[in-house]
């Protein structure tokens, strides 16, 4: 497990860009953290790191459940916040198809139970101060 600390939104974007170098087509990244932890912000950084040009395209997918951003590989941004039966819904949303050509970043991934494909990346985000956050990156086999 690796731990990273950021002290501003800008640093969180930079961390996302840095981590993007480790992710490629077929990778599923589980994001776990409370409301306001910075999950969407980290995704913005990762998407930019993967080659997305327009950062304004990244927004919370809470309502639409899944968004796709055109980067060097397709970046799929999912959100399980509103799903009561997330494990079943992941299949409906087409996670398998997404992973055949792109990177999938899943917010509120803890709601998926054991339904995420293995191995996958997991990033736990902790609020450590008004602007500071701790990110723990691990591999779930």
């Amino acid at each position, binding site marked *: 497990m690796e731990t990273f600390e950021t002290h501003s939104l800008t640093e969180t974007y930079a961390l996302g860009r840095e981590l993007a170098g480790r992710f490629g087509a077929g990778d599923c990244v589980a994001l776990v953290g*409370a*409301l*306001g932890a910075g999950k*969407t*912000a980290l995704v913005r950084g990762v998407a930019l790191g993967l080659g997305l040009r327009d*950062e*304004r*395209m*990244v*927004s*919370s997918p*809470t*309502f*639409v*459940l*899944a*968004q*796709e951003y055109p980067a060097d590989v397709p970046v799929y941004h999912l959100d399980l*916040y*509103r*799903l*009561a*039966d997330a494990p*079943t*819904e992941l299949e*409906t949303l087409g996670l398998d198809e997404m992973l055949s050509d792109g990177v999938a970043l899943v917010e509120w991934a803890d709601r998926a139970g054991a339904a995420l494909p293995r191995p996958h990346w997991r990033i736990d985000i*902790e*609020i*450590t*101060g*008004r602007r*500071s956050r701790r990110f723990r990156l691990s591999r779930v086999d």
Partner: protein
Amino acid sequence: MIDGETILLGVETSCDETACALVADGRRVLSNAVATQIDLHARFGGVVPEIASRAHIEAINTVIDKALSDAAVRPEQISAVAVTREPGLIGSLLVGVMAAKTLAWTWRVPLVGVNHVYAHAYAAALDAEPIEYPAAALICSGGHTALYRCGGPLDLELLGTTIDDAAGEAFDKVASILRLGYPGGPVIDRLSRDANPQAVHFPRTLLAGQSLDFSFSGLKTAVLYHVNGVPGTVRRRSPAPAGKTGIENFSEREIADIAASFQQAVVDVLTIKLRRAARKIGARTLVLGGGVAANSALRTSVAALAEKLGCTLRLPPMRFCLDNGAMVAGLAYHSLRVGQVSDLALEARATVRR
């Protein structure tokens, strides 16, 4: 056709509502049938799409029948079938699109696919005078927060949108932090009426310069910090007994004040951005649409803005702010007139970007 009027049937299933309406000549609403799933979703604290699409399937035929019988219109009097094809929950959109295709094919009339957010920007024209253009339209709901320049019903230019949470989503998430239940908008609106909107100063994220984009994520986090404290820091002034944090330490009065202060921050940002947009495009009219347009504080604030700018304000009544089929049929009338029709290969699309 009845007496030379062109009647469209409009279907809307992009989110919580299964809706169907009949509209004559794009504005006269003959019927407006809506079946909502709000009660169903309230139990789960939000939208549950598998259930959502199943509920649409169960409700769609009844709702279409009701729209036809309420209007006392026979299928052969209908000139076209309109449907929301984007954006929304894909499983839900599909139900409406399939139903509309089936009707269009059976009745041998044109099919018109409509953008849900554009339809919201048109809702103010229903059962009312035509909108005077150019108009600045602010569309806010659970999934959308967007500002448009409208040169006509079909001529929309996106001026700004949220870069993180939608306004309605912020209402829902803050209601969840304050443990007020789902949906968050109506309950926060109600509590705020007798509360102090100046009790807590929450940030107004306006973004740089003359930006017309929105950001509500920081506001949500600020409410969270106010309630739970900031990890790693000591509260300067704790509203709760020393050392304790969490919503259970706040009185009902204090919770209402937090809700009102949050709502005020949202309303301030929406109003300021709408003002910028209206000035930028030289708007003659301000248009509101979407579920958040039902918020009473927003309606009051935007009414004051319109007066200051000398613009006409077009606020749709509640039934046309929420998702409905009439706005779909109304907008599609204009598409039909210029020959913008779809074929039966029309596909639903979950997300539309710019």
